[in-house]
């Protein structure tokens, strides 16, 4: 371990699902306390904090419940990359030596049904929403529809991805959807946006995740086996990429924010995609997992069908993907999702993932989030 290393020494989660009597901030505080307890650190020792939610309030309000220590606390609101962005900020503060112990927290609480963003918040005219074009589900459907025609991915594979998610979710006590579904049940569920059916989509939900990060002596002396945060990279869209909420897209194709963020994360870590033992990628719907596997460099475009049907992405496979059930089984509380992925990698690298533990002592983990209007955050972790 070098002096510059940053690691995760504590992790905590508030179960994902529906909690009618609990506020988003209460979930955030519960997750933060769990992470602090896991790390063996007290709140007053934390000298930097960052976090956020999309729809459940300001993260720094949690100090009223955690304790008024005067800690510098940065609120982050960056769509699906909220957790990844908070992690980026904390990682940078620790690397700069501006803090020794940081808390990162993400949480959310969304009503049932698809998200209904306001066009004006995304730089679009009112007409875009009024005429029924402002739906994230449409984007994912049209992206995978095009991708399937270009790269030979079948609808059966989309169902297999969802079936895997629910199988993994059934093994995760903190997941929302804990019932296994067969590929047939998934294909037969209600059509939402062709070619994607109801059970191929995640649902907006509720939950919270928190992490304690450390550097220097606090990392070396940590009570728990530290997991090193080797890199974090956050990117917005480049010209020519196909993104959510785009009234038009260029003819010229450019790399997606996922592609650019993943490449940057791997380069900064000095670790390549081939070294990854376990990955969590954004699976807003089944197709997203398929496309993101290739965009992150974890496989080649068109290779997914073989990879998935051969079982390589299962918990016992060569490259286990979304071992906690992903967004499909956990739902999507926007602010919490990115940190849930990191939480899962930490448990897996520690060997504490219980029934869903990946065999063979995984050493390198990777996380990826993607969201509107074209933002991605990736992290590389190792033990």
């Amino acid at each position, binding site marked *: 371990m070098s002096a510059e290393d940053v690691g995760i020494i504590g992790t905590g989660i508030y179960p994902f699902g529906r909690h009618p009597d609990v506020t988003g901030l209460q979930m955030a505080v519960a997750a933060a306390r769990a992470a602090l307890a896991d790390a063996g650190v007290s709140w007053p020792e934390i000298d930097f904090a960052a976090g956020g939610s999309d729809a459940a309030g300001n993260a720094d309000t949690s100090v009223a419940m955690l304790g008024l220590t005067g800690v510098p606390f940065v609120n982050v609101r960056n769509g699906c990359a909220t957790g990844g962005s908070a992690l980026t900020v904390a990682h940078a503060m620790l690397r700069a030596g501006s803090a020794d112990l940081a808390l990162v927290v993400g949480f959310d609480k969304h009503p049932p*049904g*698809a998200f*209904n*963003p*306001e*066009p004006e918040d995304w730089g679009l*005219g*009112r*007409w*875009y*929403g*009024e*005429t*029924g*074009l*402002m*739906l994230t589900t*449409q984007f994912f*459907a*049209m*992206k995978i*529809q*095009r991708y399937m*025609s270009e790269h030979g991915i079948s609808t059966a594979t989309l169902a297999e991805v969802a079936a895997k998610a629910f199988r993994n979710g059934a093994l995760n006590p903190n997941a929302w959807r804990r019932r296994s579904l067969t590929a047939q049940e998934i294909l037969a569920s*209600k*059509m*939402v*946006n*062709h*070619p*994607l059916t109801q059970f191929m989509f995640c649902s907006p939900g509720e939950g919270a995740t928190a992490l304690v990060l450390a550097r220097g002596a606090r990392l070396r002396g940590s009570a728990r086996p530290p997991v090193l945060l080797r890199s974090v990279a956050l990117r917005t869209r480049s*010209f*020519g990429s196909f993104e959510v909420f*785009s*009234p*038009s*897209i*260029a*003819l*010229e194709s450019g790399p997606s924010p996922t592609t650019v963020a993943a490449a940057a994360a791997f380069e900064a870590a000095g670790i390549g995609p081939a070294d990854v033992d376990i990955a969590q990628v954004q699976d807003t719907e089944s197709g997203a997992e398929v496309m993101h596997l290739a965009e992150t460099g974890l496989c080649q475009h068109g290779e997914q069908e073989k990879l998935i049907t051969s079982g390589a992405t299962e918990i016992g496979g060569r490259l286990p993907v979304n071992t906690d059930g992903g967004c499909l089984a956990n739902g999507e509380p926007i602010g919490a999702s990115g940190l849930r992925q990191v939480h899962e990698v930490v448990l897996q690298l520690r060997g504490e993932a219980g029934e869903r533990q990946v065999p063979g002592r995984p050493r390198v983990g990777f996380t990826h989030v993607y969201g509107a209007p074209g933002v991605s955050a990736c992290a590389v972790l190792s033990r």
Partner: protein
Amino acid sequence: MNGDSVTPITEGLFTVAGGLVRLIGSQCARCGTVAFPRQFSCPKCTSVEVSERLLARRGTLWSWTIQCFPPKSPPYAADDPGAFEPYGVGYVELPGEVRVEARLTEADPGRLRIGMPMELTLVPAPSGEARGAVTYAFRPMTEEEQSER
């Protein structure tokens, strides 16, 4: 629906002249990049030398989906979710210009395929019958129209 006296859902999105609807996009004077709706700077080269350009009326379907559930209102402008009918949505590639996202007049997945020729048209905007407004959409071209090309 192609009369010159229609009420557009919003100004500056499309124009109707001589019975033909045209989308109002923009083009960068420096690098030629075309965008829709009209932009005032270039998303590719950052130039602000961008001017209005009326886009081609015909293109090919680049990708599509069917919106099978009623979007939430707001922002969707439907006043009766019970009367919801699924609608097609797609990106139509206008050759040499840009791919435009639009409602499609076709909502039968069996009648949509990537690469099929499409033409711009106008349809009643959601709640259009109440408001009388129209919006742009693309429709599959007939075989006769295709043979005219």
